[in-house]
């Protein structure tokens, strides 16, 4: 009995950080944060330093081996740990993954609105094509970033209530954005443009809504206004971070409908971040599946949904109950995401994977291409790949 208790205590204690450990962590964090903050807050950086060139001209954004870390009290959280994918012009890229997989952090890195100084882009590059110039956002100092945000990239958030200022009328808020980007327009023109934008997002009573306050609108309407605002400056890229998660099913359907229609009308790229595979399937042209800060699989929507390759993608799809499919028992991926502070040196999914085999004990798998557009990080496909390379 005593022994049992002792061992119990030991386990418990093993779970807590010791004082010296946490001291070391704090010291390391301070050092790192100072280093990166210094870099971010530089003034008068020559433009050449953060000018870049796109690898493929058709892309708006290229993430190249992006590492974004959070220096927390418990240790360094590698929220994004080597992510590379492209967002082609005019296409919708869906980033899917569970909470904490780094999908939001990827988009925040792109906007440079990470929770600084804790969150920092540690390495890698984010090339963004503004149309005239290509910038590497990862190297861009904060002061220059201001212009890119809003002008070239806009964002739709999950909770529309908190993103609208409750004390201003809807019209005023949309007007303001249009004025900011089109200073030459006069009042009448701006108002006309605002109403046009509101019409575009299928708000029926746009003259009325123009004079309303945010609290007078329902959640769906507010999300429509948010979409109108993000479209107002015709950005190159729209980041939609869980745009329908907070909405009811019928409203979600409305918004998805709207977004799908808009997608064809505008020539912006959309980066759609969601955990809902259904939303991705409806909206996205390309899909990126993230797990524990890394991309496990990417490809076109058809490839991902019809031929999911990575065990995680397969598991994710199987674990979602579907009205059309009848299963006696849902498949559930056992276990849970590893602790982001203490990532294992082997495949992050190994411990939850039902298809693991001897090779999985090796280092984190490389990217293996299944088709020109479809690739995955899994040893299951390594043999094909290597054979192909050999042959």
């Amino acid at each position: 009995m005593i022994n049992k208790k002792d061992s119990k205590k030991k386990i418990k204690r093993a779970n807590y950080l010791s004082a010296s450990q946490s001291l070391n962590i704090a010291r390391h964090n301070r050092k790192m944060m100072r280093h990166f903050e210094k870099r971010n807050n530089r003034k008068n950086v020559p433009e050449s330093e953060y000018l870049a060139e796109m690898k493929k001209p058709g892309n708006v954004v290229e993430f190249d081996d992006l590492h974004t870390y959070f220096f927390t009290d418990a240790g360094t959280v590698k929220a994004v740990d080597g992510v590379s994918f492209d967002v082609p012009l005019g296409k919708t890229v869906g980033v899917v993954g569970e909470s904490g997989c780094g999908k939001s952090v990827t988009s925040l890195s792109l906007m440079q609105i990470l929770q600084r100084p804790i969150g920092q882009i540690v390495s890698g590059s984010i090339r963004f094509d503004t149309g005239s110039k290509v910038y590497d956002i990862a190297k861009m100092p904060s002061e220059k970033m201001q212009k890119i945000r809003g002008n070239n990239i806009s964002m739709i958030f999950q909770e529309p209530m908190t993103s609208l200022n409750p004390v201003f009328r809807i019209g005023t808020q949309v007007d303001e954005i249009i004025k900011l980007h089109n200073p030459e327009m006069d009042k009448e023109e701006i108002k006309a443009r605002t109403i046009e934008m509101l019409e575009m997002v299928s708000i029926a009573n746009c003259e009325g809504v123009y004079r309303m306050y945010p609290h007078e609108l329902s959640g769906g309407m507010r999300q429509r206004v948010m979409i109108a605002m993000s479209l107002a400056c015709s950005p190159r890229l729209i980041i939609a971070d869980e745009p329908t998660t907070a909405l009811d099913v019928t409203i979600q359907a409305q918004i998805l409908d709207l977004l799908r229609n808009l997608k064809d009308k505008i020539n912006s790229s959309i980066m759609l971040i969601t955990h809902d595979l259904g939303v991705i399937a409806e909206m996205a042209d390309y899909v990126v599946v993230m797990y524990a800060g890394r991309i496990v699989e990417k490809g076109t929507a058809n490839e991902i949904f019809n031929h999911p390759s990575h065990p995680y993608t397969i598991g994710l799809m199987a674990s979602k109950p579907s009205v059309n499919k009848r299963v006696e028992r849902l498949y559930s991926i056992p276990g849970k995401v590893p602790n982001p502070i203490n990532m294992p040196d082997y495949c992050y999914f190994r411990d939850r994977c039902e298809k693991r085999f001897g090779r999985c004990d090796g280092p984190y798998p490389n990217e293996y291409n299944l088709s020109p557009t479809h690739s995955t990080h899994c040893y299951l496909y390594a043999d094909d790949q290597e054979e192909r390379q050999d042959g």
Partner: protein
Amino acid sequence: MADKFKSTRIVDDYTPIVHNEENILEVVQLKKYFPIKSGLLQRVVGYVKAVDGVTFNIKRGTTMGLVGESGCGKTTVGRTILRLYEKSGGQVLFNGQDIHKYNAKEMRDLRPKMQIIFQDPYSSLSPRLPVGEIISEAVREHELVPSEAFEDHIDNIMNKCGLQPYHKDRYPHEFSGGQRQRICIARALALNPEFVVCDEPVSALDVSIQAQIINLLMDLQEQFNLTYLFISHDLSVVEHISSTIGVMYLGDLVEYGSKKDIFANPLHPYTQALFSAIPVPEPGAKMNRIVLEGSIPSPANPPRGCKFHTRCAYCMDRCKVEEPLQRELEPDHFVACHLYDQEPEKTS
């Protein structure tokens, strides 16, 4: 003037239920109005009709799914059934007993039999109690198990819910959302309940964790012969776990029947729209969905007649004036819609 008077009075007429042994829970014309108070004297000026005459029953050992959008009153139904809210009208029979007639002492003794699992695994656990205490405190208080078997009982329940005994000393903040939901489930099951209201238990969880919890709930149902009222806005989850399904809209139960009937043959226009709105993870699968116009009206001021008529594609003049009654179109398949009013007349 008469109108005003009427609006602050709750009409409470129902035919008392004849208890059927098969049913663990029978609900008839359940109403829950939340008063809107205003003015200096806090006079009641109106009601939010969160639940406005809901009738259904749940068979022992089955799961009833309750779906609907936010604000339709499904959570209120769950809580009023457990008498966490006092009803405004109607009747709730649990094992044939009208629990709203129980006094405080009787109610407390009944509590362990009916449990609830919440949506938010973060706010549903007291942050300053260790997990062992959270799970076992009510068991100890009700003296459900003899003290010598107490630890074993708790360990057993925790094990069943996928928790380790050493978790007892930890605090909720050390657990992830899925783990917390397991703790909630363990807390409910430790009391040996017969009936559990699952109030959106998986909505706040990640997909892979959702599946774990759903499976766990289904396993436990089998083991303990539990009856669930499964409240969710996610149709696919409800479809997976339930045997009967009720669809709520603005405090009304618009359609209610077995899962098979409802999914194969949704009758109410709202049910149809709801089903078609679910995004399906198949690219290009469903493009011809029924998209409902507008948003849900406020339950404080619901439309007259059929509450759905403002958004209904099949709206008739009659819908705007007359409230449709719930009728049994097929055996055990109830719907409240004027579209089907003529049909029984034709057949009879």
